[in-house]
Every structure is written in structure tokens, then in C-alpha cells.
């Protein structure tokens, strides 16, 4: 009897510790970012940092303007969203509402498999196959562009968008659909008018989480977007994203230098952006539950 109580309380504490660990880790990461990144702003104004056009971190005097990097991340992310969201949501509808059971199983595991492909492999495939193709197809100077990056990243966002949207669509109560169908609505009308609005918060959350994945992606974008730190004029221009900048330059910096702190400051900006996106996604997910 006594030993059962002891085991019980030990297990309880273990679970509690695991639950707290995640939050603790996130706050530790955040404080570490703050500690390393905030010092940057005592020597470089936030305004010049956010709105500066030039990123020449190793020149003297160095320029740490990340507007072109923010624009780069924005172009790639928006491009990927424009491709992945409609395709992903339609795929989710097909899987949960239209496909026969056998097809559904194959599709679902296939899409989940897509999530398992490492991003460096996606980047490499894109570099070898997509980049030359994009250059010839659109007759642009180089295929290393935001567009190529968007296309490859759309593949990476798709699994998240499809599987979470599919859950949301499936959790729409049967009674809604039965009521619609019994009133004479066609299958398409039911999907479009009844299921879509009912599942909308969940689908929005799926989209936000997919976008969160895209904006934080590093390896694939570094390999195929060209990494030119200039403000892009079109989706077919080469861009440099914030993540690729951190990854490409962190190895060279001397600990504690301005460049080092500047990269952490970029990390801080990224953290804030992904935090906002996740927060929005969470709000929508909560609304689904109610």
C-alpha cells in the first residue's frame, strides 16, 4: 500500500517535470536570445537595423540593415503559402470527404512521409532539378530565386497543412452534414457551405502552423534562393532569408563581436515573428474546441 503511494507520487512528479521542461526550455532559449541579442541595440539603433537596406556585416564600418532579409523571408514565405494553402486544403477535403477508404489510407501515409524528408534533401533536389528548370521556363537570369524556394518550401508546409486541416474537417459533426444533405444540398454544396465554415478555425490554425514551419526553414532556402541581400522586386529575384543569414554566418563570427550579436538580434526578430504566428494559430485552435 505504502509503496504504491510512493510510486504514484514519483510518477506524478516525473510527469510534472516533463510538462514544465518544455516551457522552461522555451523561456531559457528566449532569455538567452535576449541576453546575446539585446546588447546589439545599445550600439546600433533598432530603426537602422529594421529599416536598413544594406547587410555588410564584415565591412568596416559594418552595415547591419535587415530590411532586405525580412523582405526575403516574406517573399519566400508568402510564395510558399500561396502554393501550399489551396493545394493543401483541397487535399485535406479530398482525403476526408471524397476519397474511398483505401485511397485515403495511402494518401494519408504518403503525405505524412513527405514530412519525414530532411530539408537538406529537399534543398539538394531543388538545386539540381528545379533551379535549372525555373531559369529556362521563365527565362530569368538565374533559377536561384525566391520562386524556387517557395515551390520547394510549399512541399515542406504541405504535410502540416493537410494533416491538421484534415483533422479539423473530420471533427465537424456528422449531424451537420446529414442535415444539409437531407435538405437536398449536393455533396459539393455541403462541403463548401457547411463543412468549410465549420472547420475554418482549424484550417486557419493549420495554415498558420504550416507558415511557421516555412519561415523557420533554413537549409533548403539557403541552397536554392541565391542568398543575395538585396530587396527583391519580384518573386523571381534572388533573395536572402533571415534564417539562411544566421546559418551561413554564425560559424565565422567571433563570440561577443557586433556581428555575433547582430545575428542573435536577427534570431530575436525571427522568434517574435514565429511566436506571433503560433499565438494566432493557438487562438484559432482553441476556438475549434469551443
Amino acid at each position, binding site marked *: 500500500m505504502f*509503496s504504491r503511494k510512493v510510486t504514484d507520487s514519483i510518477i506524478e512528479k516525473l510527469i510534472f517535470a516533463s510538462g514544465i521542461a518544455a516551457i522552461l526550455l522555451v523561456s531559457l532559449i528566449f532569455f538567452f536570445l535576449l541576453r546575446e541579442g539585446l546588447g546589439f541595440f545599445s550600439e546600433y539603433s533598432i530603426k537602422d537595423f529594421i529599416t536598413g*537596406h*544594406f*547587410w*555588410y*556585416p*564584415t*565591412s568596416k564600418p559594418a552595415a547591419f540593415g535587415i530590411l*532586405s532579409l525580412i523582405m526575403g523571408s516574406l517573399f519566400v514565405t508568402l510564395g510558399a503559402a500561396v502554393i501550399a494553402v489551396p493545394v493543401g486544403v483541397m487535399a485535406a477535403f479530398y482525403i476526408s470527404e471524397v476519397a474511398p477508404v483505401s485511397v485515403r489510407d495511402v494518401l494519408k501515409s504518403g503525405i505524412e512521409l513527405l514530412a519525414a524528408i530532411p530539408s537538406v534533401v529537399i534543398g539538394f533536389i531543388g*538545386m539540381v532539378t528545379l*533551379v*535549372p528548370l525555373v*531559369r529556362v521556363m521563365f527565362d530569368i*537570369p*538565374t*533559377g*536561384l530565386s525566391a520562386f524556387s524556394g517557395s515551390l520547394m518550401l510549399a512541399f515542406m508546409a504541405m504535410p502540416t497543412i493537410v494533416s491538421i486541416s484534415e483533422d479539423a474537417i473530420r471533427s465537424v459533426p456528422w449531424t451537420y452534414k446529414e442535415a444539409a444533405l437531407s435538405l437536398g444540398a449536393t455533396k459539393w454544396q455541403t462541403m463548401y457551405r457547411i463543412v468549410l465554415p465549420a472547420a475554418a478555425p482549424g484550417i486557419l490554425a493549420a495554415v498558420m502552423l504550416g507558415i511557421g514551419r516555412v519561415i523557420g526553414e533554413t537549409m533548403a532556402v*539557403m*541552397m536554392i534562393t*541565391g*542568398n*543575395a*541581400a*538585396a530587396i527583391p522586386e519580384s518573386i523571381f529575384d*534572388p533573395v*536572402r532569408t533571415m534564417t539562411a543569414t544566421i546559418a*551561413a*554566418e554564425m*560559424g*565565422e*563570427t*567571433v*563570440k561577443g563581436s557586433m556581428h555575433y550579436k547582430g545575428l542573435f538580434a536577427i534570431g530575436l526578430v525571427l522568434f517574435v515573428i514565429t511566436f506571433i504566428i503560433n499565438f494566432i494559430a493557438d487562438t484559432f485552435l482553441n476556438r475549434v474546441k469551443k
Partner: protein
Amino acid sequence: MKNRVIRISVVALCFLTFGCSKESRDNAALAKSKSIQIKGSDTIVNLVQKWAEDYSSTDASLNIGITGGGSGTGFAAIINGTCDIAMSSRSIEEAEIKQAEGNKIHPFEYKVGLDGLMVIVNPKNPVVQLTLDQVRNIFMGNIKNWKELGGPDKKIVILSRESNSGTHMFFKEHVIRKGNKKSKDEFSPKALLMSSSQAIVNEISQNPNALGYVGIGYMSAELKAIAIAKKKGDKFVSPDIDSVLSDKYPISRPLFLYASSKDNKLVNALIAYALSDQGQKTVRKLDFVPLRKL
């Protein structure tokens, strides 16, 4: 129930102690063996690798670890005390020496070879020769279209290395800023920053609009090296070992090894091998330029 728990923990304990003792044995072995850590320039990583292989074939207990990443990476490692030798394709900067001395490290420089930087394009590109000024204006973004150079009406795609690369720094200082320390000229922000020389070669071999710079060791049939003239009216010289060694080709640079101290016997022996006739022959074999005629 209790019995099983005890049995499991005994087994786990056995594994743990066994694992520990094995690991500590390995550690002891590692401490006894002699090891050198080398980091830095991607340009010469293959050359240093070859030196290390040839040299350590005489001494099996010698353990040499070599990683690339760029000259800046090597200097950062020397300053942070995580390597014995930094490979570099540019000389160390004042600021870097100061930072190293702050950590009680006094890097010592050895010049171990030369390298010519070629400006390369796709073989389909009709342009064969440029003056140094034209090259500079292309990389600064002042010349934007191949038709200004006698080519087709296509935008020029500029390929550069990442800013941690010694090749990038050298090209900026000697071509873009023409060796003038006070100049603030920069690469055009539209330049694509590639993570390695191989990435530049890959893009150029499939893109006729692209232009970039790499060491002469990267020459292949998929590329065309541009002949360069120092100024308008001068003779155009193609980059090769002879033209670099005779100083006729205008874009060439020294290659360095930096030791983290003067007194490490292992490091000194390796560098002495690199500077020997045999080591310099390896330089030539890998398409770099040796320090002297062999």
C-alpha cells in the same frame, strides 16, 4: 514485482559500469596519441588534407582533424582556442590578432603557397576577355548586362562567396577596392552569396548568364576562365600556374597557415613538411602555385 525491478536495475548498472570503463579507456588512449586540429579556408582544405595524409603516413599515432568553413571560421577557432592551425586564403586582420592576444594566443603566420583567382563564365558565353576595371564594375553592379561587354542582351548574374570566405575578402580588397584600404566600395547587394566555390562552379556550369570567381584549382571543361588585363591596353593574360608564378596574371594571392603557437613541435613538423620540396610538389599537383620553381 519488486524482484523484477531489482533485476532490471542490476542489469542496467552492469551496462553503465561497462559503458563507463570502456569510455574512459578510449579517452586515455586519445590523450596519449598525438593530435592536431586544423580549421579554416575551404580553398586549401584539400591541399592541407593531402599534406596531412602524406605526412601522417609515416607516423600512425598522429591524429590530424581537418575542417573547412572559410578563413574567418579558422581565425574564429584560433581566437576561441579550438584549433592548432588555421588555414587561410587571406592574411589575419589587426582586430583578429588583438582578439587572439586577449585570449593569450599569439598566432604565427606561414606562407605556404599561391593561388590564382579566375573569373569564370559558362563556355556558351561569348565573352573571353575583360579588363580588371570591367570585372570590378560588374561585381559592383555598375555593368548589369552582357551586351555592354559584347555579349547577348541578358542580365549578368553575379556569384560571390559568403562574407566569411577569405576568397570573398581578398576579391573585395584587391579587385573591388583596388588595394585601397580607405575605399568603402562593396560588392553589389544583388550578388548571390554562395556557400562554397563548388556551388559557384555548379551554377555557372548550367547558367550562361552567370559570372563568378574561384581558385584556379577548380578549372574544368564545364567552365571558361576569362583572360584579364591589368588596365586598358595591357595584354590579356589567362590564369594558369605559369602566369601566376611569373606575376603576369593580375589576381593572385598568397595562401597561409597560422599556428596558434610557435612552440608546438607537432605543428612545426607538419608545417616544415608543407614547405619542403615534397610538400610544394603537392601544391602543384593540386593546381595551386608553389612558392618557388621546383
